[in-house]
């Protein structure tokens, strides 16, 4: 009987070994030739050593219509699932294995394995990370009208949205069936060259419209991280991609029921910020790189920019203030003068809502000439897009600190958490210009007739501009106590840290509603 026992146990080990080998040596070698890591190498990088617990290793394709199946060909059914620790905190993973039927989503892998991860991650309120490298739905299993029973994954993602962080790491192709996973995720890093996403893959596009295009040209990181804004951060390779996922998660709590983790820092909370006078020009017309201000103000080495290459006229990302996670929203004068346009509003609104959902306080660094005006932006629907940012900033109930560095004009001031948007602390630098519009624009509207009637219109105009300019200074706003203080720029860090500390026990009650109607 002992032999029987050991042979049964041996069978188990043999089955495990076979499925751990993924699609076999040849497919694995091909994966490496493409510059990609295997699914199991990626998981090793994602989790703290020795913490990965796999569910469904022994899964494989099953006969769904009573016909033959080649279960030998689909170890783990092409998707590795389970959980492990990221910096000591539990995180769940759904990782597609391109060496097994091109990582296609089969009935077992999707309806049982991935579904179980989504269910358990939500049950325990832990983040989900998708490592995407998949040809999409496994058409061999799903080409008929049994399609009627599919699609829960996106409904599940919507239920998880704002409850647990969702990351879709793009490490290979991701077409059709899988492309809405990143579409609904909170963070989407993309590997340069090897990753792509599109609602229809190249072959489907050819059949549907006749367009000749490759998956990469249509949906690579050069499109999504630079033009469409669907991708967040372009990364060089798989290793960097997984490291970026870990970094992202470090700023967020495991769920909306928790506060983000606090880390130790050597950077003193009351440090005076040196060198801002060398970064920020006094002339409100002149440009500079606001990221230099962010790096100087927040805890050293903690700045993590999100969507750095898209809608660059606004800068968003995570940093830490005295060890506490914060979401930074800053105008970028170096790009388009820092003017807000449709994409910038869209980018900021989504980031603000993510921070608010996950209890990450917001810090607004304001230097904005306003929203872009003109016929071009009206055709784009800038009112609708700008309203998203207005909505997100109003809606956010996390602690909010507003620092007006230089310009705060028009609705640009509002969406950057002006006084009306209930900031917990709102201060201005001595350089600040808060106004409905610049003096030049104001003179054109208010004094148009006087200027036209003048014998020397240009001189009159210039004189009126100076009259109005004298009314634009932070002491008028501070005199009315509309802002809390005017601060020495060097005090910015201390004021932010104190402002966040002041608002730590913030609680805002609003009227019951099913949900608001954000102008999406």
């Amino acid at each position, binding site marked *: 009987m002992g032999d029987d026992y050991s042979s049964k146990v041996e069978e188990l080990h043999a089955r495990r070994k076979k499925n751990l080998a993924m699609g076999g040596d040849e497919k694995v070698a091909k994966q490496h030739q493409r510059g990609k890591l295997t699914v199991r190498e990626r998981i090793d990088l994602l989790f703290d050593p020795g913490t990965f617990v796999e569910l469904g290793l022994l899964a494989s394709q099953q006969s769904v219509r009573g016909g033959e199946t080649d279960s030998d060909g689909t170890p783990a059914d092409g998707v590795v699932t389970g959980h492990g620790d990221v910096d000591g905190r539990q995180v769940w993973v759904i990782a597609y294995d391109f060496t097994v039927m091109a990582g296609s989503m089969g009935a077992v892998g999707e309806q049982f394995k991935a579904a179980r991860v989504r269910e358990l991650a939500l049950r325990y309120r832990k983040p989900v990370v998708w490592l995407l490298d998949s040809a999409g739905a496994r058409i061999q299993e799903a080409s008929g009208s049994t399609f009627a029973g599919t699609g829960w994954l996106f409904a599940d993602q919507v239920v998880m949205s704002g409850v647990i962080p969702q990351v879709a790491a793009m490490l290979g192709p991701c077409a059709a069936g899988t492309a809405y996973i990143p579409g609904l995720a909170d963070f989407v890093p993309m590997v340069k060259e090897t990753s792509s996403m599109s609602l229809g893959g190249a072959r489907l596009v050819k059949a549907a419209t006749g367009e000749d295009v490759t998956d990469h040209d249509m949906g690579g990181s050069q499109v999504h991280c630079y033009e469409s804004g669907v991708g967040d951060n372009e990364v060089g390779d798989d290793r960097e991609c997984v490291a970026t996922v870990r970094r992202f998660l470090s700023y967020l709590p495991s769920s909306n029921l928790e506060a983000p983790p606090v880390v130790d820092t050597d950077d003193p909370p009351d440090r005076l910020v040196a060198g801002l006078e060398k970064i920020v020009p006094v002339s409100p017309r002149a*440009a500079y790189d606001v990221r230099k201000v962010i790096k100087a103000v927040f805890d050293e080495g903690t700045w993590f920019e999100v969507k750095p290459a898209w809608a660059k006229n606004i800068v968003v990302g995570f940093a830490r203030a005295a060890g506490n996670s914060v979401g930074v929203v800053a105008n970028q004068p170096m790009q*388009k003068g820092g003017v807000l346009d449709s994409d910038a509003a869209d980018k900021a609104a989504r980031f603000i809502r993510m921070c608010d959902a996950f209890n990450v306080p917001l810090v607004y660094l304001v230097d904005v000439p306003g929203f872009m005006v003109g016929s071009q932006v009206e055709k784009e629907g800038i009112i609708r897009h700008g309203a998203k940012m207005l909505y997100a900033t109003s809606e956010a109930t996390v602690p909010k600190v507003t620092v007006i560095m230089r310009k705060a004009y028009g609705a640009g001031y509002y969406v950057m958490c002006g006084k009306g948007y209930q900031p917990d602390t709102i201060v201005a630098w001595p350089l600040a210009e808060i106004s409905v519009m610049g003096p030049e624009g104001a003179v054109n509207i208010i004094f148009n007739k006087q200027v036209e009637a003048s014998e020397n219109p240009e001189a009159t105009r210039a004189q009126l501009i100076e009259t109005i300019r004298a009314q634009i200074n932070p002491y008028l706003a501070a005199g009315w106590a509309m802002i809390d203080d005017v601060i020495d720029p060097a005090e910015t860090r201390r004021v932010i840290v104190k402002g966040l500390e002041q608002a730590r026990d913030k609680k805002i009650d609003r009227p019951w509603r099913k949900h608001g109607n954000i102008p999406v």
Partner: protein
Amino acid sequence: MTEVKAELVGNVWKIKTQPGAQVAEEDELLILESMKMEIPVTAPRAGTVKEVRVKEGEVVKEGQVLVVLE
């Protein structure tokens, strides 16, 4: 050949290069003025300026070619 285009509507405030000039990546080619901001337009790559297609004071549209590099 690389066309350097205007990112937004504005007027050409200062031209800081001329045909034949050698430029490095990130060198300022001209400064646009829009929304009361000075908006530097820089070279996307190193090269020689082949053409400057605008004049100071001219109003340019979003996407309009300002400078051609080769």
